[in-house]
């Protein structure tokens, strides 16, 4: 039968210019479609994961903890507690008689062993079914241990990754407002939606330091419980990964009146523009911040631009496909690739909203394919259809590109190379360059069809 794009999925694929813009999205993944998405639990786990001095206990059978152990490249400058994988490892008897006792005992012994500043307890599918009262257990343990013990309502089947983001924000919001805000500078921000992959938050914090802006809390890269408790004392929230943390920003605006700006630290313009936004915000308080910021950006760009120009000569005209988790990254990357002379011809995300896709359609070139909640066969088809040179995605997408002999850039949370900030733009360009310029592609069967026939024959005979 072989139908690459199932009928029910057709409304989630849009080709710019071929039809008026319309995108279905934010719906449950289709059964049997092999979605690249995970679940509610995944959404919560990735957002809260980098809080380094908290205990993260997964309440459920072992898999959910095993598959998320040390999974993110979110590094900490101090405690490493977030890199351990804790689970109640529910067994059949717990499922039959309830897991509350095991949860409580687990929490108590782990808090005693590790002395965390707070504990997050993640519910999984099974907890939603057997009806453990996590809230009550957490309240009891919190009262006895004196640390916040926060239930994260992340039952896997109750929606998609986005609901997981919401659950994470709700759990964090219970911390916000419980710390002392004394001594916080009037020129202060919280960094929301950055996860300090390969030390990226540190790059951004250094820019703010040079501008004279205090960072109160990183939410959540290199995050600390005490910072989050007092982050309502900051003057401004900067929201990068909006899917993950916009809700927290909105809740803080409502309760504490903290304004927020959307930012992105990826690429040249977006990085510079984000810094200027912050400078503008504080200009009334300290007019000299503007010149400091201009100077900072000028110094960084005068170093970066010649190096980019050098790499661009090799990259000019190459075509890119990208499939990312949230669409904020896609906006910045489209612009970043233009700096390298490259064209994005396929762009998709797991959890984009209609607004996101509309905006993507506006900034993308005609003919670009936009896709929501794609799967391997669709992505492979788009790569072939557009004959792309480089694919940007995560571990699950990598073999799709590689099997077709197409370059790949890992822009997901496992990566070990910092891609944010001006230095990150250079790292990014170098990574793309290394992939495009490798001599291996010239030997790929798709590029040399005569050889391909031989290879196929050998494979059959061998």
């Amino acid at each position, binding site marked *: *039968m072989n139908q690459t794009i199932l009928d029910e999925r057709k409304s989630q694929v849009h080709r710019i210019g071929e039809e008026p813009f319309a995108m279905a999205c934010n719906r449950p993944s289709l059964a049997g479609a092999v979605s690249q998405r995970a679940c509610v639990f995944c959404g919560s786990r990735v957002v809260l994961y980098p809080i380094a001095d908290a205990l993260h206990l997964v309440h459920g059978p072992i898999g959910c903890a095993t598959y998320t152990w040390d999974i993110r490249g979110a590094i900490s400058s101090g405690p490493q507690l977030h890199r351990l994988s804790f689970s109640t490892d529910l067994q059949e008897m717990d499922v039959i008689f309830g897991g509350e006792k095991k949860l409580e005992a687990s929490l108590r012994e782990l808090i005693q062993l590790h002395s965390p500043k707070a504990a997050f307890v993640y519910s999984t599918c099974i907890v939603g079914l057997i009806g453990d009262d996590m809230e009550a257990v957490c309240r009891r343990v919190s009262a006895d241990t004196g640390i916040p013990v926060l239930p994260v309502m992340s039952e896997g089947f109750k929606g998609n990754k986005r609901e997981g983001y919401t659950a994470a924000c709700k759990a964090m919001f219970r911390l916000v407002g419980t710390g002392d805000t004394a001594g916080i500078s009037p020129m202060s921000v919280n960094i929301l939606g950055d996860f300090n992959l390969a030390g990226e938050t540190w790059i951004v914090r250094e820019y703010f330091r040079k501008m004279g802006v205090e960072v109160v809390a990183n939410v959540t890269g290199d995050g600390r419980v005490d910072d989050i408790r007092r982050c309502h004392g900051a003057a401004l929230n900067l929201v990068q990964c909006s899917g993950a943390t916009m809700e927290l920003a909105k809740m803080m605006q409502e309760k504490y009146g903290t304004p927020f700006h959307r930012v992105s630290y990826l690429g040249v313009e977006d990085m510079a523009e984000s810094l200027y936004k912050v400078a503008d915000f504080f200009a009334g308080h300290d007019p000299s911040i503007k010149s400091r910021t201009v100077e900072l950006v000028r110094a960084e760009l005068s170093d970066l631009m010649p190096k980019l120009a050098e790499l661009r000569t090799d990259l000019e005209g190459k075509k890119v496909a990208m499939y990312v988790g949230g669409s904020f990254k896609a906006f910045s990357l489209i612009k970043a690739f233009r700096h390298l002379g490259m064209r994005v011809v396929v762009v998709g995300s797991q959890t984009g909203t209609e607004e996101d896709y509309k905006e993507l359609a506006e900034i993308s070139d005609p003919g670009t394919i936009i896709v929501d909640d794609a799967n391997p066969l669709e992505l492979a088809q788009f790569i072939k259809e557009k004959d792309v040179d480089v694919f940007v995605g995560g571990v699950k997408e990598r073999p799709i590109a590689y099997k077709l002999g197409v370059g790949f850039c890992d822009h997901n949370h496992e990566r070990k190379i910092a891609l944010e900030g001006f230095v990150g733009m250079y790292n990014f360009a170098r990574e793309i360059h290394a992939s495009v310029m490798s001599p291996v592609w010239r030997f790929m069967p798709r590029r040399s069809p005569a050889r391909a026939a031989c290879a196929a024959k050998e494979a059959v005979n061998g």
Partner: protein
Amino acid sequence: MAENYVSTTNACKMCTPMGAALVFKGIENAVPFLHGSQGCATYMRRYIISHYREPVDIASSALGEKSAVYGGGPNLKKGILNVMRKYDVSLVGVATTCLTETIGDDVGRYLNEFREEFSDLSLPELVHVSTPSYSGTHMEGWHAAVRSLADQVVKDKGRAHGGVNLLPGFLSPADYRFLKALGERACVRFTMLPDLSETMDGVIWDDYHSLPDGGTPVAEIRAMGGAAGTVEFGMSGGLPESAAGVLERKFGVPARRTAMPIGLRATDQFMDVLAEFASCDMPAKDAFDRGRLLDAMVDGHKYIFGKRAVVYGEEDFVVALCSFLGEIGVQPVLVATGAKSDRFKAAVTNALAEVCQTMPVIRDDADFKDIEDEAAELNPDLLVGHSKGYKLARAKNIPLIRVGFPIHDRFGGQRILHVGYEGALALYDRLVNAVLEKSQDECPVGYGYL
């Protein structure tokens, strides 16, 4: 003795459906299908892809809240139809998850209804296996899936064809390739179930393949009832009845059980079993390889003797590794598995009895916290296991010899050969060199000759 904790820290196991999904990846043109929430399939795909670096399509019934209340049957059926639309699929292997086991979905009944409802379509083989994630480890899932295939796909004894069923357990693609080639050399026609040799370590493509080449053909599975015998490695995860047992009971196919052929003695045993079925002399290559292995064991014995090893991982695999480590004079000091097993201790003791004077600490139901605590006083020189032991290796500043699954922090895990004389020799070289490298690095003057 380390303290017993209620909680699990850094598990040394994966969940049950993971094992079943891997087995179905080893069947030709099969799609593993997890009946549960979307996250299970995606998490496992990511975990598997990080090791093998191959496309791993695992379908999901992507259950939501409604299905959890009213049952997952409609999503399961719709999902299978969608898989049939997208893939030229010959078998769909449906494994349950904690979600669908708990809501009590009767997958066998759903599949029967599906067969009736869509009897006008040409349907793939539909196999189901019960894999509640709160019961057992990925290895219970693995063995249950192999057993389900033997139980549900093999319908009759069929024609006696003289071939041999080989149920090798969870090994690397390089191992499966080796076993197939060995069968050919010894003139034994294996039906190896599963066969991940090509599906999980494939060639580059000129066009995208919706499913990878390779895997055990479904037609061959159907004919397993007519085999001359079934050879099964290991203890089969404590199941009351293994796949070989099913084939013996239902079709009278004699079951032979032997240890995973890792190291000298276990490979000797397997070669003896093979010789019973072989229609030609045992191949000269393997005799040479055996001689070369012994030669190397002599050449290197001083470097490795008395080194203290911590060994961890899947039950059968760890027992087999211990047998080999003992043979070469390595002293296992701590042997651990994440599985709960009554037989583990006896099996390790038995593997080491002839070759080791002292027995190691042996732990089943262990996590890496237990392993770390137990290892604290044991002064190990080496760690032997998958890549999740890296944290401990780093803390102790000792080498980790990476074997098995998963290997997430190195390249080429799918190509590590563990079995046969050839595999033993490759492992031996790596073990000896790890010891040499460390002593060379730590020597204040460095040296250029041994």
